[in-house]
């Protein structure tokens, strides 16, 4: 005896849901990261040297990877957020699937730009 089936991945395998999931996931991670980011920057209150010492922590490769991931998350969240604002405040022209596709490209572009500039 089983419990009746519920909504599963098959009901969610469409582009608009994917956009929602990315937006929610990126938002959650950014919200968790933001206080840390501010904490690091507030070390600047210690003056240039104190700041430099705190920043030295970020030379660790995990931090570098995290920074790159965060730029991508920010790009994803920005693009998804603008899509929501257009859906909620703009004229209705469907679920804006073209926009989702451009957003994915935009996020990839941001990731690549970061790698290009950081090196």
């Amino acid at each position: 005896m089983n419990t009746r089936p519920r909504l599963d991945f098959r009901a969610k395998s469409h582009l608009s849901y994917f956009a929602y999931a990315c937006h929610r996931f990126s938002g959650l991670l950014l919200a968790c990261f933001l206080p840390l980011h501010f904490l690091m920057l507030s070390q600047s209150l210690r003056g240039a040297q104190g700041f430099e010492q705190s920043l030295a922590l970020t030379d660790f490769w995990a931090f570098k990877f995290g920074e790159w991931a965060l730029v991508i998350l920010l790009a994803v969240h920005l693009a998804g957020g603008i899509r929501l604002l257009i859906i909620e405040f703009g004229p209705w022209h469907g679920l804006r699937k073209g926009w989702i596709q451009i957003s994915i490209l935009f996020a990839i572009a941001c990731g690549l730009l970061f790698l290009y500039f950081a090196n």
Partner: protein
Amino acid sequence: MGQAMNQGVLQAKLWYAQRISAMVLGICVAIHLVIIFYAIRGGLNAQEILGRTQGNILFAFFYEVFVLACFVHAPIGMANILQETFPKSGIAKPIAGALGLFILVLGSAAVLGVYTGGAI
């Protein structure tokens, strides 16, 4: 009925606040991304950061607006997620409140820090 309506008004206002702050953030994040790409060329150190931000009132103003928009936007989003994932736990408000506090205090400290360069 009265209480349900107060809830309704509150939900509507929170939604509105989150969307308005989202519009502000849309602009701030776009500008921030450009700044970041510009600044990280050839690596980034404290000297370089402070060199650009210290004494720069425009920078300070822009980033404080950014912090305030985050302070409105993030806790509301977090509260929604927590309320939906853990509906009867009652943790949505306290965690969202804590997040808001961290963002406001640490964010403003960060803006103050890079503006003054520690010279206060």
